[in-house]
Every structure is written in C-alpha cells, then in structure tokens.
C-alpha cells in the first residue's frame, strides 16, 4: 500500500512526549506523508485509541477520507513500587482504516463517564489512583459490560454469534467474568495478553484485535472494547483470512535498570562528554525535515545514483539534477561496524556502523535491538524510526532512523 496517500494520521498516547507540538505530525513526517492531511493526537484516556478508530471509520463512511492511519503508542509509567508499574507495558500498534478490507468495522457503542479511577494533572510525572475494589466494582466491570451489551443490542446480535471478544485485563479474576456474564463462552474470550505484555494502555485494544484476527476465520465477528473513563466497544467482521501469524512482536529482554535509565527515572552517570551534546537548532530540523525524519535523500536524475543525505551535486556524475529518494523502506546490509565505549550513549557501548542500502546509497547509523558481539559485516538490516536523543537544554526530543538487524530467510 502506498502510505503517502494516507489522508489522516491519528495518534493515541497517554504519556505523549510533547504536550505542545503535535505528536501525530512526527509520525506523519516519519512516514513521509503529504502535507494535505488531517492529523490529530487523541490523548487523556486509555480509550482514546477506540475513539480515534471510530472517528477514522466515520470520516471514511461520510467520504471525507479514503485512508486513515491510526497509530497507538503508550509508555505508561507507574511510580516505582506502584501497582501501575507492575502491570504496565510499553507498546505500539497501528492500523490503516480504509476501503480495502481485512476486517470491516460494523458498529460501535461508546459509554463515557468522568470516572476518576486514575488521574494525573499537568504538573505530575506519575498518575494517582483510587482504591482498586472501587475501580473494579464501580468502573471496570460495569463500563465494559455496558458498552458490549449495548452494542449487541444495537446490532441485534447474540453473544453466541461473536467469535472473539477482547478487552483489557485490569484484574485477572474479574476479567473473564465480564464476558461470561454477558453470555460469551470462555473459549471466545480473547487472551488479554496481560502475562506477556502487561497492560499497554492505548496500544492494547489494537494488539488484542490483531491477536483475535490471527485466531478467527474469514467471516467471523469480533468485539474489541477499550477501558478508560468509560468504554468503547467496536464490532468487527474478518473479511479475509488474516495474512499475519505473528503480528505482535515482543522486544528483546533488557534489564529493568536500563529501562529506568531510558525513561529517565534513574539518573545515570552521563559523564561530561554526555553534557556536551550541542543544542538543537529547530529551524535546521524544519529545513531538513524530510531528510532527517523521513530519511529522504536524493537520487541523480542523470545517472540514477541514490545518495544519503541529500546532495546538491551528484557524487557520482556531478550533475545538479537530483530528485528526492526515500531510504526508510529499503533493506540494507552492514558494511562495517563498531561497538564504541568512548562515545556518549544512554545505552553504552554505542553500536553503530555503515549501512549499504539495497539499490544503492550508504550512510552510517546507530544499530539497535541487538546484542554485543552478534553483528557481522554483511548482515541484513532494516531501518526503524527511533528517538535519537534528548536535548536537555532546548528540551527537544530528537528522532532519527536506526538500523535493526534482521534474521535472514
């Protein structure tokens, strides 16, 4: 699918990196989407993702958009020692809503309540919550049940017609009871992925949808409900046999100490070299936005040589006639590499190398999601959009592309 034709980009995030500067825009430029699109951040609740999904479906239904990307990402950080810390996971998931149908959205029902089970004011780093028994009995079990039952009613469907029902698990014992009380049988309740992923906030409904789609046949109906200040229940029908068998990946294990350092919860020693990070010039970022955030270099119109970063004069034939050329979707191979213990890195040693792209072009990149000593010259990589660093003086999160080793075959 040609993503550049995607019309909208919605981001659902609970702990969004920027309070001002739209986060969805950063995803849109990373994907090199055209500027004439609508973008929005949906935030503030863990049901923002289903709200975004419903908005996307509605804008398509009325013909305002042909394709809408809904990308959900959450890093919900609980205060160290809290229940939220124990049950939360970081995850992201994305779907494209459009006319080509893997699955259709056939209806929804939303219930919205100002139920302050968990809250965080603008000045807080961590959320607070009320007593769990109250959340469980007054909110969690009631809202999800209400949304799903009203949806069934609205669509005049019986629970027995639904192949999978999915909703997040806040309390393992109460989780199945919600569906069982509505007449679903135990085997139709989608595993809420709490053991493998934890609760991943806004990413969770989409992750459960993917997990459910992997397990049903063409024509099956699925209900996915979110939870957070109410609940949105959405009815899907699988229109094709789902082409992915492992649509959910779990990142490599990392020590919790490193995780805390990455999330800036543990003040690790950065050394004076780490303090000498130069301040970010935002106007430079804007002028070179496609180059930096969309990994667009140039290709010579005369001799066809792809080159990154973009050049004014072709390195191969010296022509000044070059066109934009995107590298982000291209596979590459490691030309050379090192593990650098001197360089400042939040995750030392800094692993980086020179990557040769399929079809031409070469540049040096950080290499990530790999173990020390496992990289070799010639290994295949793909490019991944990542946070590059944080500029503590100008308060800018910098994003760029890193190379991730791929298993061949």
């Amino acid at each position: 699918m040609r993503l550049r034709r995607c019309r909208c980009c919605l981001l659902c995030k609970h702990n969004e990196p920027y309070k001002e500067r739209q986060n969805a825009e950063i995803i849109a430029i990373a994907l090199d989407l055209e500027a004439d699109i609508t973008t929005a951040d949906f935030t503030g609740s863990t049901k923002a993702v289903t709200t975004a999904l419903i908005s996307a479906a509605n804008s398509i239904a009325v013909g305002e958009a042909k394709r809408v990307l809904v990308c959900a990402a959450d890093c919900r950080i609980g205060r160290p020692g809290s229940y939220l810390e124990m049950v939360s996971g970081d995850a992201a998931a994305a779907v494209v809503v459009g006319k080509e149908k893997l699955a259709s959205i056939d209806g929804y029902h939303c219930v919205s309540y100002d139920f302050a089970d968990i809250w965080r004011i603008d000045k807080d780093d961590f959320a607070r919550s009320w007593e769990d028994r109250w959340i469980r009995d007054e909110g969690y079990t009631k809202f999800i049940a209400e949304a799903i039952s009203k949806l069934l009613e609205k669509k005049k469907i019986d629970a027995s017609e639904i192949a999978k029902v999915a909703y997040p698990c806040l309390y393992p014992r109460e989780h199945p009871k919600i569906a069982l009380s509505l007449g679903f049988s135990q085997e139709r309740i989608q595993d809420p992925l709490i053991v493998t992923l934890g609760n991943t906030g806004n990413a969770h409904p989409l992750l459960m949808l993917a997990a459910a789609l992997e397990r049903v046949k063409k024509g099956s109906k699925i209900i996915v409900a979110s939870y957070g200040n109410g609940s949105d229940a959405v009815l899907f029908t699988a229109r094709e046999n789902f082409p992915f068998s492992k649509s959910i990946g779990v990142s490599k294990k990392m020590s919790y100490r490193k995780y805390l350092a990455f999330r800036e919860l543990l003040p690790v020693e950065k050394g004076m070299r780490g303090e000498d990070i130069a301040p970010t010039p935002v106007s430079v970022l804007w002028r070179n936005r496609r180059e930096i955030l969309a990994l667009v270099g140039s290709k010579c119109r005369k001799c066809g040589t792809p080159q990154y970063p973009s050049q004014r004069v072709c390195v191969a034939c010296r022509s000044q006639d070059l066109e934009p050329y995107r590298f982000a979707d291209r596979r590459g191979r490691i030309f050379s590499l090192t593990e650098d213990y001197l360089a400042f890195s939040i995750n030392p040693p800094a692993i980086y190398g020179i990557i040769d792209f399929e079809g031409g072009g070469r540049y040096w990149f950080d290499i990530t999601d790999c173990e020390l000593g496992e990289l070799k010259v010639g290994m295949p990589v793909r490019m991944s959009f990542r946070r590059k660093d944080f500029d503590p003086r100008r308060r800018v999160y910098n994003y760029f592309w890193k190379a991730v080793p791929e298993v061949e075959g």
Partner: protein
Amino acid sequence: MIRDRVAIIGMGCTKFGERWDAGFEDLALEAFNEALDDAGIEAKDIQAAWLATCFDEVMSGKSGLPLANALKLPFIPITRVENFCASGSEALRGAVYAVASGACDVALAIGVEKLKDTGYGGLPEFGTVMGTRNRLIFPNLTAPGAFAMLATRYFSKYGLSSEKGREILARIPVKSHRNGAMNPKAHLRREITVEDVLNAPIIAWPLGLYDCCGVSDGAAAAIVVRAEDAKKYREDPIYIKAMQISASPGEELLYRWDGVHIETTLRAAERAYKEAGIENPRKEIDLLELHDCFSITELVTYEDLKISPRGEAWKDVENGFFELDGEIPCRTDGGLKCFGHQLVHPV
C-alpha cells in the same frame, strides 16, 4: 609545483603530553622560541604567520588574534587555518606558498592545540563541531569508533579473524612505544608488549586502548624561506620536495569505497610522489612519518602511501619492515601514538 622552492630553516616543538601546567600561550611561546633559536633569527624577522588550531578555538578563541596576542607579533598578517588532523600541514602550506610567491621572505607556520581542558578523555565531543544538521543524523560517533570501522572492514575483507587482526595491529603500537620511549619530548615513554595491547580495555571494538593514540597538548613551529635564501641562515636547511593535500567530497560514505583504505591519503600521496619525482616509494623512501592516530590507520596508510602492496601491509608489519632497524623505519619519534596527537602536529 613547490618542489625545491622553499626550505625550512628552523623548527621548534614543545614537550607533548598532558600539559596541565600550560595553556595555549605557554605552548605557542615554547615552540616559537625553540624555532627562532634553531633558525638563528629574532621574532621581528617573521613577516607573516599561519596558525593552525582545530578544536582549540573553544579554549583560545577563533582567528589569528590568539597567536598575535600570545607572541606579541607586531601587527603582521596572521591567518588561522583549520583542516582537522591536517591542520598543521595546512599552516605550513600557507607559509610555504607565501614565501614561494614572494609575498614575504620569512614566514612562520605554527600549530598549537590545548586539548586537555575538556574534562574528559578523547577528543572533544564531535557533536559540537560537525555541523548542526550532521548532529541530527550522525551516530554519536568518536574518532576511535570511526576508525574502528576501518579495522572491522579490513579484517573482513582480507579474511583475518578478529584475534589474528588484533594481533597484527598490536605490533604497531608496540613499535611506536619502543621509539617513543627514547624521545625526551614524547608524551608516552614506556615500552609495551603485544600482550599488553591485546589485554587492554576495548575503546571501540576491535580497537583497544593501545590501538589509540593519546590526546596531547603541544605545539610545533617551522620557519620557512625561499630555497635560494636558505643557506644565508644555515648550512643544513630542509628543502620541501612536495606538498600535497586532498579533501574528500564525501564519496566514501555516500556510495563508493572499499572501506579498507583512506582515499585522501592515496590521492595526496600520488600527487606528492609525482611532484617529488618518486617512482617506487618502497625503494626510494628512507624514513616514514605518517598519520598513526590508530593502529589501523597506520596499517592502511602503509598501503595508501604505496609502501606496502594493497592488502599486504599486515605482512610487512609481521616481518618488521617498519621497525627502527627495518627497511623503512616508521614514526621514529614515537608517532601520534606516543609522541602525542594534538591534531595540528605540523611537521
């Protein structure tokens, strides 16, 4: 062509090292005084000066003014030049061209670098000096890391296991330390063994501590005149046979490079040999001083300078070709490795 048109009549050089006692002014004066003594002239005889500093502008300030201030040079033209590790050569080039053109008769080239005021080991953080756009797309790389990629590639291309490759590289600093130990002005004056090199902490794989040169404070100066005037100053001037520099348009990292040589060195060497009339460097060169910032740099430079055949420098290293008693002794002063590296080491 600059061949035989210019001569060096005096040189000076500070003790290199972690000169906690000395700032930019102290280092500049130390090298300058020695060069004047060596040439047998006075400060007022200098008609123009080229100052090379690279990272040091953070400490000393930009422009030629820091040199004029430190040495109290009397309103003569002073140009500050910078071209990374070729900065010192760049200063000399400016001075050489000036006397050759007749613009002046006696010119000074001086390189001064005070690196040990950053508060951390290694060169100053590249992120601050590589350009604002580059900082947003470069890995947070260091010099050891950048050159380590050369070693990774060299081992891979020539089928050397990392053990074998690291062992070959280890012989290079062992030689430099042996030479440096004899040089009273060298930064590092201690002999080491291959085992020391192999057992040292890794800085940027596959380069360990001893594969990397130190970062030193220091200054060096040369005074040049036209060749026909040189004998007025001394009986044994040094005549410049060739002087070439090459700047890369960046194609190594863009599309075409084997990753096991340094293209600028190769191009500059080819031009310099042509200028000097050297046809077979391996037979005609008697002594070699080259840029040995890392063991791997020295190894590939043997090949780029066409002393060793391509891909075979490691065999020359194994056979002791570049040792003090070998066929072409290399870095007899201890090299950047032990004499010290402050980026502007001009001569």
